[in-house]
Each structure stands twice: as C-alpha cells, then as structure tokens.
C-alpha cells in the first residue's frame, strides 16, 4: 500500500451543542484523488476547515506526511458538553494557524470564490508565492532579492500558461468569467507549492461542459504537479469520473467509504443522498 499523506483521526467538531463533524476518520494516500460528498449541511466544509487549521477540532488529531499537525481535546465548558467519542484519548493541544498549515504543504480553494479583488490575475498568483519567500522585509524593500523575485515571476508566468490564464494575466481577477475565476483560484493554490490540494466545490455553479473541462483539468494538474487531491463536490459526474475513493458524510457522520462503484451501489448512500439528488 502506498504512503499516507493525510490522516484524519477521530475528529469531532462540536459548536455549542451541535455536532457538525462526528468522529471523522479518513486516510488519503499520496497521488490519490479522494472526494468527500454528502448532502448540504453534512459537515464537509467544516471538515475542510478543521484540516486546514481554520477551526480547531473539539477532539481528535490530524496527521500530515507522517507528522501530527493538529490535535485537541475538549476543554473548559466543552468538557461537560462534549457529546462525541474518544473523549480522554487526546491530551495535547496542537493548533497551527491556517497559514502554517499551508506552508507545511496544503493549499485550498473556497466554496464561495475568495480572490483578492483589487489585484490582477498575475498578482493573485504571485502573492500566493509569498509564503515561499525567503528574503526578509529589508532585502525585499531594497530590492536585494531580485533573483528570487524574478524566479517567482517566471514561475507564476509558467503556471498561468499551464492553466490557460496567461492571456488574461493583467486583467483584474474579478473581471474574469466565473469558470476562469475558479480556475484562477486553483492556480493560486498551486502557487503555494502544495503536496495536497483541497478543493471546496470546484464545480459549483458550472454548466456540464465547464464541469467536464474541470474534471480533465484536475486530473491533469494532479499528474503534472505530482499532487494529491482532496475535494468536496456535488456534481456526481465529476466525482464518479475522477475520484479513486469517496467518503460520504451525513449529519456529521461517515456513512460510507469506498470506490465510486461501491458508493454508487451502497444502499445507505442512496437513501441519504444519491437517490434524492440524482435528477438535480
């Protein structure tokens, strides 16, 4: 079996009395494309936010490239309110901020596109390179980092050509059509040089043709940049075509996981989800 890149271990996320993610366990292997699906409100984005450090889980741990990067256990008021499992198994607190997680080698996109509005396409991607910058603020101000800056610019140019946005690089990010904005967000995430790419509903709002293009695109960048891809998606065509494995969440709980074929024939999944939304 190949090497595990991301491991989510007994993660529970509870907001007040609401358990948004209940004892989530999942493993993603290097080079895989894995999808997380489930009806609206199942806790998919919350799971993403836990993995990327936006939320601190209530209990559980996250491992990345063999290292434990996030860990927490119920504290304070939550001690008595905690409704999840595995209480008492975790004793440490590891709570990196999202930027730190990104520098470890994870980059994400957002469900509701979050580009930097006043910046050009080129600058949007270039800024994501900032987290890989080694020069300090003085050498950057006095332009002693020409080499690095030039390398970064060349790299961004190349990246934009790869994703097919080179011709609009001087446009404002927000002036792009919707599909291209999605693509730009992925390019921006790639610029942060991740090993693991997390895509939060990359095909949201796309028509069938755009979705098809996107499907090919995701497979393409996975191969080209040697990535692992973890994605949340509602477009079942995309999910079934591209994923090697699928996890299904419902009301915070994992109700199934397996290959697309297994998921498609899983009774619980069909009941909870597929049977209802297939037509949509």
């Amino acid at each position, binding site marked *: 079996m190949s090497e595990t890149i991301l491991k989510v271990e007994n993660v529970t996320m509870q907001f007040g009395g609401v358990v948004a993610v209940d004892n989530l366990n999942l493993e993603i292997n290097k080079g895989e494309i894995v999808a997380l699906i489930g009806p609206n409100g199942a806790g998919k984005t919350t799971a993403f936010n836990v993995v*990327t450090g*936006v939320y601190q889980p209530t209990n559980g741990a996250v491992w990345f490239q063999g290292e434990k990067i996030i860990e927490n256990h119920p504290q304070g008021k939550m001690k008595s309110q905690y409704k999840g499992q595995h209480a008492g198994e975790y004793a440490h607190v590891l709570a990196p*901020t*999202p*930027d*730190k997680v*990104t*520098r470890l080698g994870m*980059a*994400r996109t*957002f469900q509701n596109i*979050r*580009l*930097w*509005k*006043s*910046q050009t396409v080129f*600058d949007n991607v*270039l*800024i*994501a*390179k*900032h*987290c*890989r*910058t080694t*020069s300090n*603020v003085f050498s*950057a*101000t*006095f*332009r002693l*980092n020409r080499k690095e*800056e030039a390398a*970064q610019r060349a790299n961004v140019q190349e990246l934009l050509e790869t994703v097919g946005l080179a011709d609009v690089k001087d446009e404002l990010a927000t002036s792009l059509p919707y599909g291209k904005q999605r693509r730009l967000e992925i390019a*921006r*995430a790639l610029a*942060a040089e991740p090993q693991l790419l997390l895509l939060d509903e990359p095909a949201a709002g796309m028509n069938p043709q755009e979705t098809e293009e996107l499907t090919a695109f995701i497979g393409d960048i996975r191969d080209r940049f040697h990535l692992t891809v973890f994605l949340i998606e509602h477009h079942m065509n995309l999910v079934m075509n591209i994923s090697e494995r699928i996890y299904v969440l419902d009301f915070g709980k994992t109700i199934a996981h397996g290959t697309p074929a297994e998921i498609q024939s899983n009774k619980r999944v069909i009941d909870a989800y597929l049977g209802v939304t297939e037509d949509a």
Partner: protein
Amino acid sequence: MKKQNQNLVFLAVLLVVILGASIAVDAALPSYHIAIKVIKKATVYALVAVSMNLLNGFTGLFSLGQAGFMLLGAFSYGVLTIPVDKRAGVYQYFDGGAIKFSLPEVFAGFLGDSLGSVVGMLAALLVGGLLAALMAWLIGLPVLRLKSDYLAIATLGFAEILRAFFQWNALGPITNGSNLLKSYPDFAHATSYIILAGALVALILLLINSTYGRAFKAIRDDEVAAEAMGINLAKHKRMAFIISSFFAGVGGGMLAMYNGTIAAASFKSTMTYEILLIVVIGGIGSISGSIIASFLYIFSSEWLLRGLDSGVFLGIEAPGVFKNGFRMAVFSVIIMVIVLFFRKGLMGDKELPDLLRLRSRRKEAPSK
C-alpha cells in the same frame, strides 16, 4: 518590465522638476516666506499621510494612533537636539533637564559644524522613528487582534495614554512636562524637507511594490484567503503597524522641526483625524493621492483660504462672515462632501503613472 521602465522615467522627470522648483523657490524667497512654510508643512503632512495610508489603505488596518507615534517622534527630536547651552532656559522648571547632551553638537565634535549638525538632526529623527516603531512592536501584539472599529478606538486610546505620560510632571526632566520644548534646530531650506520626506516616501513605495507589500494588500482584500495562502496574519499586520509607526515617528520629528515648539497637548486625536481626512481626500490606497491631497490641503488652509479668516476673500470684504474659523468650517464642509459623494477621493486607489497610462491606452483604442 516595460511598464516599470515607464514608471521610472516618469518618476525621474517628476523628481527633477520638483527639486528644481524647490531649489529655485529657496533661492528666491526668504526662509520665513509663506511659500517656504507651506512647502515644508505640506511635505511633512505628505509623509505622515503616506505612512497612515500604508496601514489604513494598503493593509486595511483602521488605526487611529498616528498622533501618538508622531508625539514620540517629535519629543525624541526635541529632547535630543536642543543645544546644551539653551537647556537651562527650556527646562527652567526642571533644573535644566536630565539630558546633558545634544546630538547635533555631539556629531559636530568629530564631523565638523555643518555636516555634524545635519547628521545629528537626522540621527535624532531616526531615533524618534525607532522609538515609535518599538512602541508599535510592544502594543501591536494585543491590539492588532482586534477587528476594524475596535482597533480604531484602541489605537486612539493608546495615543491618549501616551499623551498623558508625556505631560506627566515626573517625566519633566526629559519631556519638560506640560511646558514647551523649543530652541532646537531646523532645516532652513524647503528643499531639505523635500529630499528627506521624498526619500522616506520612496522607501514606502518600494516596500508596497515588494512581495511584502503585495502580502499587505492581500490581507486588506481578503484576510481569510490571505491566511489560507500561507500569509501569517499576525506577523504581517504587526510588520505593517511597526513600519507605518516608524515613518509616523520621523514625520512627527519633522513636524516638530517645522513648528519650532513641541507641546504634548497639540498631539490630540484631532490631529489624527486631520491626517485621516487628507488620506481620504487623496484616495485610500493611493500614495500619490495622499501627497497631492497634503499639498492641496496645506496650501489652501495655510495660504489660499487665509482670507476666509481675516475679512477679505477674493476681493469681497465681509468681516462679519469671514472671521476667525470660517476657513476651517468651509474646509470641513468640503471634506464632508468628498466623504459622502466622492468616496474614492482624488485618485481612488490609482497612482499618477496609472492615470497617464490609462489616457494613452484610451488614445490607442478609442473604440474600447
């Protein structure tokens, strides 16, 4: 790259024109002439406005602590440059003060009189900037975690606390308590002000166009996205805060220089508001806007609209209407009109070269 060269040429031409003009003005007019005064004051305000813009306009941190940092710079400059033989007179209530040296004189000791005193004055300004930066470093950690309006009110409050400290009698041997600091040296020529402030603004410009400046803008545009793309929010916000405060500190020192006297009581929140309004007039997020607005503001308030306060304006004599305070009243009405109806200010978030380029592009493609 072509765009950058164009910018450079533009800047070089602008620089030569401005320097030439200011040298000519310096040569033609006595140093107490209103034109020299206006240029000096406007230059200082331009520096301070740009430093505030770096924080409020480019990093999106709405801070109102500018007056506090300027106060630090002003006092550092005054305390370190008052000639030793004048200290007894200035610190008459504090036994000649606690500090018994003057930086310009110290440097004059081994660099010669003229060069030494200039170096000493610059060193004192630098110390002021560094002190302001240090203070920003100290309070940055707790204060910068606050969101928008809370940050504004906390920094405003911090400036008030600083002011109280500087008026405290126990610190009198250094700060002269609530009495004036005076008798310290000033640059006679407007050109000196322009070169100094110009160099500092150029530094800010370089910073803004560096990878760190881009990170600041990302934080301003979308904090969540910036953090998700690996930008350490706490570190970068603090950095912007410290750098902005440094320049505010130096600006405060230069303001002290220009004014000739320093009183803690004048560094009130009104001063911060005034600078903020200049930034708004020029356009939040535009360096050239802040500079142009500073010159317009100071030029009109100190010179052009003087008549509004003294009975005669544009040849109309109406002492009943044009009396003390009318100028500022008119001014604030203009400011409100800008705030309400021209929210982008003079320049929006564009710079001067951007506008020129826009025009040439329009000429090339009139259909577009």
